[in-house]
C-alpha cells in the first residue's frame, strides 16, 4: 500500500500556502489530510470548521465541506452541526486564541458535554495574525508585542484544561514529531466524544525571535529536546522536568458522548408520552 498523501482533500492551485517558513500549521494540515485518507473519510461526510487567526485560514486549502467562523466560536458552530447530524466527521481547527482565550468558554463546555468533535489546536504561544501579542497560552514572563517587560499573566495548559473539563481523548504533539502527531490525530478522529490534539508550534515570525529562539531551527530543537513521550515525562522528578513537556497521548477514556445521551433522552421522552 502506498503512503497516504492527503492530496485528494487539498484544493488544487492554492500552494504555496500563506503560513510563514518554519510555521507548524502546514505540517498539521498535512498530517490531518493524510489521517483523513488513512481513515477513508469521504469529502462529503467531513466538515472542517475553523475560527480566526493563522490556523483559521486552513479551510481555504481544503475541498471537504467547511465552515469558516468567527473568532473563538468555531466549537459552537461545530456543536450544532454534529448534534443535528451525528453521521458527519466534524473537525475543528483553532489556534490558542480561538480555543482557550476568546473561546475558552466554548472549549470547556464542549469537553464537559463530550460532544463528538475533534479539536486540533495549534498553540503558537501568541496572537500571530495580529502581529504577536500575548495570548492565554503565552508563558509567564515571555516577551511579545504587548508584553515587552515580560508577560505578567500565567498561561493555560490546554491539555490539562481539556482533561479536567471532560474530554475523552487528549494528546500533545509538535511539528518536529510529525509521524507521532499523525498517529495522535488519527486516534483523536477515531475516538467517540470530545478529543483534543494540541500542537506546540511556536510562532517563528513573532514569538521565537523575542524569546531566545532566533531561528526556526532553534524552535525545532527546543521541541525535539524538551518534548518527552508521556510515559517518560511522568517518570521525571520535578527537578528533572526543567522546561520539558509531555507529548503523545495523555488522556484516553470512553465516557458516553452527547449524541448518545441525547438519543437516550429521546427514547425516554417517547416512552413517557404513551
Amino acid at each position, binding site marked *: 500500500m502506498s503512503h497516504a498523501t492527503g492530496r485528494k482533500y487539498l484544493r488544487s492551485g492554492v500552494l504555496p500556502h500563506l503560513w510563514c517558513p518554519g510555521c507548524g500549521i502546514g505540517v498539521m494540515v498535512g498530517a490531518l489530510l493524510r489521517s483523513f485518507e488513512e481513515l477513508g473519510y469521504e469529502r462529503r461526510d467531513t466538515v472542517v470548521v475553523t475560527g480566526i487567526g493563522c490556523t483559521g485560514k486552513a479551510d481555504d486549502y481544503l475541498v471537504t465541506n467547511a465552515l469558516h*467562523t468567527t473568532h473563538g466560536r468555531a466549537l*459552537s*458552530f461545530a456543536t450544532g*452541526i454534529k448534534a*443535528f*447530524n451525528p453521521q458527519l466527521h466534524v473537525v475543528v481547527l483553532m489556534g490558542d486564541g480561538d480555543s482557550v482565550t476568546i473561546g475558552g*468558554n466554548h472549549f470547556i463546555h464542549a469537553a464537559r458535554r463530550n460532544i463528538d468533535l475533534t479539536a486540533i489546536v495549534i498553540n503558537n504561544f501568541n496572537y500571530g495574525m495580529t502581529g504577536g501579542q500575548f495570548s492565554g497560552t503565552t508563558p509567564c514572563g515571555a516577551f511579545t508585542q504587548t508584553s515587552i517587560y515580560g508577560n505578567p499573566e500565567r498561561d493555560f495548559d490546554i491539555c490539562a484544561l481539556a482533561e479536567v473539563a471532560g474530554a475523552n481523548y487528549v494528546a500533545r504533539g509538535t511539528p518536529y514529531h510529525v509521524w507521532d502527531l499523525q498517529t495522535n490525530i488519527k486516534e483523536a478522529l477515531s475516538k467517540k466524544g470530545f478529543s483534543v490534539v494540541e500542537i506546540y508550534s511556536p510562532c517563528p515570525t513573532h514569538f521565537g525571535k523575542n524569546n531566545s529562539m532566533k531561528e526556526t531551527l532553534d524552535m525545532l530543537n527546543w521541541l525535539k529536546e524538551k518534548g518527552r513521550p508521556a510515559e517518560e515525562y511522568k517518570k521525571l522528578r520535578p527537578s528533572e522536568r526543567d522546561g520539558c513537556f509531555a507529548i503523545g497521548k495523555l488522556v484516553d477514556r470512553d465516557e458516553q458522548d452527547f449524541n448518545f445521551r441525547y438519543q437516550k433522552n*429521546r427514547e425516554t*421522552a417517547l416512552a413517557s408520552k404513551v
Partner: protein
Amino acid sequence: MEREARLLQGNQAIVEGALYAGARFYAGYPITPSSEIAEECSKRMPLNGGVYMQMEDEIASIGAVIGASLAGAKAFTATSGPGFSLMQENLGLAVMGEVPCVIIDVQRSGPSTGLATKPAQSDIMQIRWGRHGDQSIIALSPATVSECFSLTVTAFNFAEKFRVPVIFAADEVVGHMRENVLLPAAGELEIVDRKKPAGPPEDYKPFKADEDGIAPLASYGGDYVFHVSSSMHGPDGYSNNDPANAAWRVEQLHRKIEMHRDEIVLTRDFDAEDAEILIVAFGATTRAGRAAALELRRQGLKAGVLQLVTIWPFADKEVMRFARNARTVVVPEMNYSGQIAGEVRKVLGAGADIRQVNSYNGEVITPQDILNVLK
C-alpha cells in the same frame, strides 16, 4: 393534525409555530422573558426527532443554530435584549454566509440588565444596526398570541426562502399573555423549504444567486460539498478579497431583500383608509393603538391604525399611503427615543405632525396615554 383551539401563552405559541414550520433544532440560553420557549422546546424536540441544546451562552447558541442549519435543520433560538446583544457577531455570519435561521427576541426593559421582567420595544435599532458592517435584515413583530403562532411560521418561511436570519421581535407583553389561538391543520398554512441545488455537484457554487437573487443551499453530508465563510468570499465560498468581488457580495446581500421587498413588508390596517388621525404601531402597543382608535371613532373622529407587522425593512410606502389623509400621526412605542417614530419622520418629513407616545419605565402604553397626546 386537525384544527385545534387552544389557550396558549405567546411564548408557547411561538414554539407551536416553529414546530408547524418544521423547526427541528433549538439552541439557547435561558433568559427572562423568553425562557418558556426553551422549556417548551426541551420538552417537544426529543419527541419529533429534533434537538434541544442548552448552550453555555447566547454566542454559542446562535453558533450552534447556524451550524445545524447548514447541516440541513430548520433551526432557531430565543433570547431577550442582553442575550440578543451577545448574538450580534454571529448573526453577522448568518447574514454573510446566507444561513437560514430564526432568532426570537422577546424584548425587555433596559438599558443593561434593566427591568428584567418588564416589557420594552427598545431593540428596534439593535435589530437593524446591531452588527458591524452594513447589512439588511428582516424583522417581524407580533401583536397577539395568534400572531406569535402565524408570524413564526412566516419568519421560518422568509428565512428559508431568502436564505437569511429573520428576527422575531416579540415583547414581554405578547410573550407572556394568554389568548385563544386557533391552530391551523397540517397543510393549511404554506410551509417553505430552502431551495436545493440541482445539476452536477462539482459545479455547485453556494453563493451564486439565481435570477430571483437567491442561491440554492445544500446541506453538509449530501452530494454537494460546499464551503461557507464569514470572511469575504467568492461565489464558491472561498476567500476572495478582490474589490469587485467584495462590492458584488455586499450588493447581493442587500439586493435579495430589496428585490422581494413587497413580499416581505407586511402590515395590517384597521379603519386606516380614511384616517385623519393615523396611529402607527407594532407589537403589543398595537393593542392600545386599536383601543384608542375605536374611542376616537366613537367621538366622531376619523382615526385608524396601521400595524407594522414587518418592522424591517421599514414599511415606508405603506406609511406614506395610509398617512395621505392624516393631519396627525401618532407613534406609540415602549422606548425613550422613538425608534420607529424616527423612521416615520423620515418618510413623512420634518413638517409632519408626528406625536410620539413613549414608555420606558417598564409599564405598557395605555389607550389613554395615546388619547392624551391628541388633546
